[in-house]
């Protein structure tokens, strides 16, 4: 009796310790976000003081002013990020659903090989084709054009894989056969019957595509030349390189760049996590 009580006590002490460590870790994870929002409301001289501010100040408007002074095209950059991420997402959903549907529902010659190629491309790192891709873009006359960002990303292998898994598990083949007997064509079946059933998969893949494009840095870095056409991450980096570093403006700019993602994450964290772990669990 007493032994088990001691054990219980020791166990709960260890558990309490665990809670404490997990909590401290969570604080560490959130700390940069906290200081990003706090610094966004302080002037640079406040931020430079020792110790630095830990609670919100009143210089938000001033920082925004500095931000727009140094980056006169900030809203263009924001719109560019939205435009590229939005188009990438729409195209990726459409093309991945098409390919995933073919792999899930049809038997055709060369299917195994085609699918192996799709999965094989996942092993190719982005940097490998980076240099010649820039050349391809310059030959096409696409340098400095947003289409150089959304066209190559319009059908990703991971998206095809996710769509195939979802369609194979969620849509019965009998449904398609029934539609065929009723005289519906192959493309009609896809657009009128399959696509409306893909809501959850579209949500998951859409989120991870949008966020990947929104945060993309390497692509815009080698493609976009005019500051007017920069995406938000590029614009923020440009802010960093200018003489005295405007910390307040950098913080408010970073906050504007991350806030949409944080809000989306808070409302759809489950779907996010599902999407970003899907490849690992099933693969």
């Amino acid at each position, binding site marked *: 009796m007493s032994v088990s009580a001691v054990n219980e006590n020791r166990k709960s002490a260890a558990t309490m310790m665990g809670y404490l460590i997990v909590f401290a870790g969570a604080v560490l994870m959130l700390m940069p976000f906290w200081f990003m929002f706090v610094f966004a409301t302080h002037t640079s001289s406040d931020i430079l003081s*020792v110790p*630095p501010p830990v609670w919100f100040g009143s210089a938000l408007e001033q920082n925004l002013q500095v931000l727009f002074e140094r980056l006169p095209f900030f809203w263009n950059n924001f719109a560019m990020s939205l435009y590229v991420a939005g188009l990438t997402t729409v195209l990726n959903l459409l*093309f991945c659903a098409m390919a995933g549907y073919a792999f899930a529902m049809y038997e055709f010659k060369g299917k195994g090989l085609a699918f192996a190629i799709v999965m094989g491309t996942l092993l190719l790192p982005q940097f490998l084709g980076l240099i010649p891709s820039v050349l391809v873009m310059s030959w096409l006359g696409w340098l400095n054009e947003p289409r150089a960002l959304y066209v*190559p990303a319009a059908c990703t292998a991971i998206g095809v894989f996710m769509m195939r898994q979802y369609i194979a598990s969620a849509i019965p083949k009998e449904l398609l056969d029934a539609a065929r007997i009723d005289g519906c064509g192959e493309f009609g079946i896809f657009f009128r019957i399959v696509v409306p059933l893909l809501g959850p998969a579209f949500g998951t893949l859409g989120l991870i595509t949008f966020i990947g494009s929104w945060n993309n840095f390497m692509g815009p870095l080698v493609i976009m030349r005019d500051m007017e056409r920069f995406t938000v*991450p590029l614009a923020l980096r440009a802010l*960093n390189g200018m003489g005295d570093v405007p910390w307040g403006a950098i913080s408010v700019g970073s906050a504007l760049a991350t806030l949409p993602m944080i809000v989306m994450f808070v409302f759809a*964290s489950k779907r996010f996590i599902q999407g970003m*772990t899907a490849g690992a669990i099933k693969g």
Partner: protein
Amino acid sequence: MSVVDSRAEEAPAMVAPTVKRLRKKYRRQDWAPYVFISPFFILFGCFGLFPLIFSIYLAFQYWDPASGLNAMEYVGWENFYYVLTDEWFLDSLYNTVWITVVSSVPMQLVALPLAFFLHTAYRRWRNVFSGIYFLPFITSTVAITLVFNSMFSKDFGVFNSMLTWLGSFPLLEYVFPSDNIDWFDQEHLRWTIAFIVWWRFTGWITVLYLAALQTIPNDLYEASSIDGASTWQQFWHIAVPMVKPMLYFTISMNIIFGLQIFEEPFIMVGVTGGVGQMGKTAAMHMYSTAFVDSDFGTASAIAWLLFLFIAVIALINNRIFAKSGMEK
């Protein structure tokens, strides 16, 4: 034989008009899947495969893109030879490996125990905490690295202020340094970068482990606790062996993504790699060779050597796991 058979079967169709026969032979159902998968293959061909093949070709040329396509000059293996004997490349590769190891090992040490604890000790708050740990993974690297830049600043940074504050307590003054640490100097820069990488990816790996742990049937835990197993024993003898495939996956990710690291150091110290080039990674070296020095041939050779290096390490990892008897 079979030819004859099929002809015999098709015989009635011979009577029907040719158009109808052709239509039957090439039914929509047969060619539709090719239409459906064509966008992927067209896009991959143009923007994936072609650049890849072209970069093999480029790796054997000496070429400054500013002087036009005709200025290309075949140099054989010279680019590879040059890169492999180039101290800057070897240093950048060393930095890359260093940062990968120093960020990945703590990542693995934290992630699985953390996932196990979240799995066993939390119910209602599990999703909240895993969400918090996951948050760094979905935020813009550029934005967050800029914020870290200010937090790591020598004279006014949050981290140095915290150390000073902790050092102001009696006894603790012997533990914490009295002078501000320069987090961007030769000694600390790689640690700083590794910390940011650790911060960004630990949550993702934790969530992966959490998902793997949730697939373990509860009976195993129940049976073992009836046999008197402690939580510690359950961790080592049930959780760890059961998540081994995920362990393989996350270590592969550590290798593949770690060795490609580019954005964090690039934003933090710029393309030069900071003091003593301590923050210059192999991918950054490739970038600067191509877009600063305008030497596309050498840069392509760097890209392929880095790819081979990653592939070899990943294969070694695969062998180690295969040997230790991982079965899926």
